[in-house]
């Protein structure tokens, strides 16, 4: 018996030491009877900023948040103590981070991406630290208690910006460029909820203007090439590349096939337009971040989170590609109207060089579903509800 204890002593001892260390670091949150934690008015605000992984989109969002906070008077190191967390996609670390940010005495948690939102929301059910999320495409589908019909239907300590992938806007632009388009093809994976929403939006819009949407489904990246061939051979005027994680790895093959038949492609990733896509309209995630940062500053100044609606904010960024246009089988059908050229954030010239325009991607945030495109084109879209 004694021998057993001696063998276990090292391990149990280490656990004991660690426990004590953790508890000691947590002394601030101890409640002495009758006392409540009070915040002095002039004290530096503590904010935790969590992104799930390192990726261009997420980094842009985070940079935007920091810029937005600064613009509103909260600078890290001065009015603000900002701590960034990045679990690099590891689920265990993400959980540990979620526990830490909800227990670490922060005044506000800002999270970027859906997995971060979920982990933190789950860990936050007890402490209910104010939590602001961004870069989540469909907040009501994340299972954290956000309503899909009522913008104020959310836990009183949780709110944020959804950024719906702009499938409908992409089709609108397509129609704007070429009103004679009749058939559009696309390939997507039915198991991807993000893709499902995009295709639903696309279908709805196409029906309203009389475009036939020719779809093919794939289960895995290997089947994309065949499915693309099948769709293209059915005689489509254009091909839509939606944001589907199964299709995207095969994007080069899709573009190649479309190019060989002279059929234009369009997508919701402006960043990929230089690969050979006719145009792309996507979210400017930096701008989303800025808006989030500004909202964060309001919360830090005392705005009650329960009164803030969950809104969809999709500041559109448009990139056009003249080089691709010149190589189409019927380039004249695909002339970019001047109004579009003026609105675009960047145009790739016939030599393949990207010329950026000073147009900042702008859009005003609006309650669940109404999004407006950049300056001048105020098309009130019907409130898009969840399918």
């Amino acid at each position, binding site marked *: 018996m004694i021998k057993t204890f001696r*063998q276990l002593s*090292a391990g149990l001892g280490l656990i004991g030491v660690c426990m004590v260390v953790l508890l000691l*670091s947590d002394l601030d949150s101890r409640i002495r009877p009758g006392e409540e934690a009070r915040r002095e008015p002039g004290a530096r605000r503590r904010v935790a900023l969590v992104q799930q992984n390192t990726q261009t989109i997420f980094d842009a969002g985070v940079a935007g948040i920091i810029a937005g906070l600064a613009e509103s008077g909260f600078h890290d190191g001065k009015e603000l103590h900002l701590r960034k967390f990045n679990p690099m996609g590891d689920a265990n670390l993400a*959980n*540990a981070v979620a526990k*830490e940010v909800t227990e670490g005495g922060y005044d506000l948690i800002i999270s970027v991406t859906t997995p971060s939102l*979920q982990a933190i929301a789950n860990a936050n059910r*007890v402490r209910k630290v104010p939590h602001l999320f961004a870069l989540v495409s469909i907040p009501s589908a994340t299972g954290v208690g956000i309503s899909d019909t009522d913008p104020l239907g959310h836990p009183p300590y949780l709110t944020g910006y959804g950024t719906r992938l702009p499938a409908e806007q992409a089709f609108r632009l397509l129609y704007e460029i070429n009103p004679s388009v009749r058939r559009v093809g696309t390939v997507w994976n039915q198991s991807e909820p993000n893709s499902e929403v995009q295709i639903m939006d696309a279908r709805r819009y196409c029906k309203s203007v009389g475009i036939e949407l020719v779809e093919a489904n794939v289960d895995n990246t290997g089947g994309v090439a065949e499915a693309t061939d099948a769709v293209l051979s059915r005689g489509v005027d254009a091909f839509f590349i939606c944001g589907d994680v199964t299709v995207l790895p095969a994007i080069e093959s899709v573009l190649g096939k479309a190019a060989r038949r002279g059929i234009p492609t369009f997508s919701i990733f402006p960043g990929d337009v230089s690969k050979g896509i006719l145009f792309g309209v996507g979210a400017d995630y930096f701008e989303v971040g800025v808006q989030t940062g500004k909202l964060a500053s309001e919360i830090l100044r005392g705005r009650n989170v329960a009164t803030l609606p969950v809104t969809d904010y999709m500041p559109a960024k448009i990139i056009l590609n003249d080089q691709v246009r010149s190589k189409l089988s019927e380039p004249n059908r695909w002339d970019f109207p001047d109004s579009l050229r003026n609105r675009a954030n960047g145009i790739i010239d016939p030599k393949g060089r990207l010329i950026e325009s000073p147009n900042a991607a702008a859009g005003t945030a609006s309650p669940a579903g109404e999004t407006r495109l950049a300056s001048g084109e105020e098309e009130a879209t019907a409130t898009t509800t969840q399918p």
Partner: protein
Amino acid sequence: MTLLFGALSVGLILSLLSLGVLVSYRLFGIPDITADGTITLGASVTAVCCMHGIDPFVATGLGTAAGAVAGSLTGILHTRFKINALLSGILMMTALYSVNLRVMGSSNLPLMQYKTLASMGEGRWRRLLGEEGVLLLGWKVSAGEVALLIGVVVIVALVGLALYRFFRSHLGIAMIATGNNAQMVRALGGNVERNIVIGLALSNGLIALGGSLLAQYQGFADVQMGIGMIIWGLASVIIGEALTGSSTLGMRLIGAVIGSVVFRLLVAIALRWGLNPNDLKLITAVFVFLALVLPAYFRRKRRRMAPSAPAPAEKAEPVGS
């Protein structure tokens, strides 16, 4: 205090992973990469079942069984088709990624609104302790946290005892011997191939149970949640061995659990004390490296000081490696 409860809870849940890795790696000498896929399989099967209103105990059981099936397939690949053990694990893990996607129907399944073991436990303890929770040494702890920790302690204790009893049965002893000296087992009438399949089924069943509990604890199942898990498992086993030694079976089992808990505690401390989160993964790797290298170093120093014991016998390699 809640951070502590969380670290202890997750540490205990993941100790099921370390126990599984202990069985496959230490007892059979097979580094079984299937683990990355199995932990997600346990989570996904349980999540889908809970979503459809199946009793959480049954759901957890189904998740565990699925893991056992996956493990036996790895075993069959290795023993029947003579595929190298490491490769068999990788094959299964790759296949399981698609299987998990199919099972869940999407890449992420939130569980917070469904009845799970976690919600059941929280409900019961909330009735016991009241909405406000308890005051532990001056810290407020919610009923939910208490429920989860106690529940996990009970489950791990039961599993540990069951494993201990199993490895003192004839079949269990034959299985340890298979990993130790396959030639001897054959000469004594044991079916080495069958033992390996059973062993991997057991190992992956444990891991799947861990995945199932983890999903219910964290409130969602994600198809990527298993990636890199076997490293955590291996690290915990090795830390445990460094702390409790590997003299008897009981010590090894307890060691795996202690190792997992210590590891999670250290991660929590690192996060709390301002470690740059981007460096966390690198630090984990360095940590595992130290845990692998230091025990051997200390053993050598000890041997130089004490009269030498005979060198450990070679272990006969199982089929195919």
